[in-house]
């Protein structure tokens, strides 16, 4: 051991494997020598044979047919995909919904939470599967949000997600933003198209332009009617529940609904259907707890209100529902207390912070 530095002869096979006499050194070197051709041809041969196995073979043998939801992109969507690729969206947003990414709760009805299949990528060059997630996976993003939510989000992600890390893309031109939105709304193929169609149908119906015809949208409205019959919030109310609800409201909702809950958040300027104003006492009392729960859980189809069922627990949603009832009584601006809660069906005088119904001040 210690004489290693001094013992410099030979290629040290004897040192490694001391034992019976081995062939003489010149003979051994003829066998083991690494010369120009051994190294160059040898390394190429090893490389080529492994490449044949792990690159050529799968490319020749694995050619999955298009899946049921796959479809080619329109030219506008393809332009959006180029922008998506060139601006590095795919570094933070993968496009592979893994089996374990599917919501274990199965709570939402709006989002198609199905693992990605090989055939989903049949029509695209470069699958953009992604390698890292700082934001959500977008494999099934199409139709999860409305176009106007996407616009508000691209203009400034903090508009819709107060704690978002995403850079804003307000510097893209209007046409580029349209292309980008069209691409994002196409993610998920025909499943996404169905979701987008339901969203647009309900938007038109809410604006009074046409009656509801989309079966998915009709089913949504039926569900909502059913849920609106629930008139009791099952969570016992106390101040910690209200503070929890307030915390969630301020980290998730103020982008659209505003810090006062008046629907005047920064995103609202981009939205066709304005966010709900919670500051009215009458408004706070008009919607049943069940309707509020349903709207938070599944989102408001056709509006920018997204489904929170995959992000908040059942208790958290009910806590938010309790908190919303304190807003007309200054719950958003002070520490909410149980005394501030406006009961369902309340028809009394306006609350302390209720700006919508207070009589106009006169004089100066």
């Amino acid at each position, binding site marked *: 051991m*210690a004489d*290693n*530095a001094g013992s*410099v*002869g030979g*290629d*040290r*096979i004897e040192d*490694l494997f001391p034992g019976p006499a081995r062939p003489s050194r*010149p003979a051994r070197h003829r066998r083991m020598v*690494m*010369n*120009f051709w051994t*190294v*160059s041809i040898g*390394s190429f041969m*090893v*490389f080529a044979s*492994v*490449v044949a*196995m*792990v*690159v050529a073979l*799968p*490319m020749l043998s*694995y*050619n999955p047919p298009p899946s049921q939801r796959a479809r080619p992109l329109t030219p506008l969507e393809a332009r959006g995909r180029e922008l998506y*690729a*060139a601006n*590095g969206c795919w570094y*933070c947003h993968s496009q*592979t919904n*893994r089996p*374990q990414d599917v919501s*274990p*709760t199965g709570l939402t009805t709006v989002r198609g939470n199905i693992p*990605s*299949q*090989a055939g989903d*990528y*049949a*029509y*695209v060059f*470069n*699958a953009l*599967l*992604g*390698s*890292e*997630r*700082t934001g*959500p996976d977008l494999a099934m993003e199409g139709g999860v949000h409305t176009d106007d939510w996407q616009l508000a989000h691209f203009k400034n992600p903090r508009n819709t997600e107060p*704690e*978002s*890390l995403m*850079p804003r*893309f307000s510097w893209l031109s209007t046409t580029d933003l349209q292309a980008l939105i069209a691409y994002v709304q196409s993610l998920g193929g025909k499943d996404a198209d169905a979701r987008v169609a339901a969203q647009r149908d309900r938007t038109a119906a809410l604006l009074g332009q046409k009656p509801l015809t989309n079966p998915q949208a009709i089913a949504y409205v039926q569900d909502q009617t059913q849920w609106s019959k629930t008139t009791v919030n099952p969570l016992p109310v106390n101040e910690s529940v209200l503070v929890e609800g307030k915390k969630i409201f301020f*980290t998730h909702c103020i982008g659209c609904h505003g810090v006062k809950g008046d629907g005047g958040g920064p995103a609202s300027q981009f939205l066709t259907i304005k966010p709900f104003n919670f500051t009215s006492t009458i408004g706070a009392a008009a919607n049943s707890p069940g309707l509020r729960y349903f709207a938070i859980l599944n989102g408001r189809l056709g509006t920018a209100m997204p489904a929170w069922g*995959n*992000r908040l627990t059942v208790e958290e949603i009910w806590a938010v529902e309790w908190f919303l009832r304190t807003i007309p009584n200054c719950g958003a601006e002070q520490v909410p207390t149980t005394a501030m809660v406006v009961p369902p069906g309340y028809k009394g005088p306006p609350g302390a912070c209720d700006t919508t119904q207070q009589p106009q001040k006169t004089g100066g």
Partner: protein
Amino acid sequence: MAVQAATLGRAQARSGPAPYSSAKLFLFSSIFWLALADTVGLIASYQFVNPQWAESVPFLSFGRLRVVHTNGVLFMWLSMAQVGAVCFYMIPRLCGTELWSERLGVWTGWLWNLAGVLMVVTFLTGNSQAREYAEMVWPLDVAVELVLLLVGLNVLMTVAKRKERKLYVTIWYAMGAVIWMPLVYFIGNAMWETGNFWNLSGAIKGVDDATLNWFYGHNVLGLWFTTMGVATVYYLVPVLTRTPLYGYALSMIGFWALAFFYTAMGQHHLLQTPTPSWLKTIATMASLGQFIPVLAFLTNIYMTMRGNWGKIYESVPLKFAIAGTVFYFVTCVQGPFQALQTFNQLIHYTQWIVGHAHLALFGSMSYWQFAAILYIIPVIYKRRLYSQGLAEAQFWLATAGFLMMMISLQVAGLIQGAAWQRGVDIREILPQLRPYWVMRSVGGAMMVFSGFVMAWNIWKTVTVGEPLEPATRDLAADLFREEVEAPVAQPAAVGGQ
């Protein structure tokens, strides 16, 4: 002797660039690109702490900065440092000859730098093929392919015309690298797909493209950076410790096992994607098989270090080289475990992977090139390193900063992975990661600063470093000669005596 050297120098001044011109060009360029690409990485990392900073400036957008950082450190810093050190300095030394064509080497260097400038400009203006580590647009792919082939030609011709009969391990790895890398780059970039020369070209249709992408993405590491890095260590450790390499057989096992196992590993980046299962199995097995070349290499180096451990206190290059082998060991223990389905499910897509990437490319590969630069520049210029203290400062800044970054990222990754497995939405866990990202940026700033310290130290060495008379001898060739059986007729080192 001095007169002879002067005559030789004049003779070469007439016929072409002086010996080691290309090595100097590549090493100096790499130091510049390290400073640039690392600074860009720091700016990008700060956006995790404060996303609103400069976000309405398109070219400061994270998606554009990240690609400049990754490609900048991979192709401009690390590749140039490795080519400069291994191909244009060590190979001529070990071959007992000059580089086949210094003129070609210098031209290659300028072409490489030009490609780098165009790369940065195209990325910052929003042009990318959107394939990880293969983002350069098709015309730049051609330029990269060209410079790789030119480097390969120079290396192979130098080896073919060598005066030393036998090939030292470093030469095997360099030959392997210059043969593999142009092929890996061509195949992985799907360069035959030229339908659209610009964005989103160079990709095949369907999910198979991911297989191609990660065959490339892993082998640019395994068959280029690792190969060149290992070649660097195989040269530096025996030279800096004045000790012959421990084992010839171990070197052979390491080399051929690396070629065999590394090439098959790419699919372990896609373990949870809808791609062929048999390919994933091969990748996982090859990732475990990677222990063979790694342990062969590390055993070889650590056995060479027997009795020499104290020398790391005297020599910063040796310190960098050995610290690099320690980080390499950690990388190569993490790697195979990350390639197992169960662990992969926990850490895939998380910040853990970012930490792992920095462990491999900064902790080991970059450390080895720091060692090479701090050793080679003084030898070429025959000047003592300007400041041992600055070199020590560089080492400790880099090490402390890097550990801070890697540990914070990997802890953040475990938090993310555990939260996702509980069904927590990705957006809900992000606010909790902010402290770790602050730590990452602080560590990153130290790493960037260490690069500037090296740049300053090298600049001062070249300009005002104390001249060495007689010049530091490069003992590699001597040691190498002691190892082989045949007596060598020609002195190996050029300009070093």
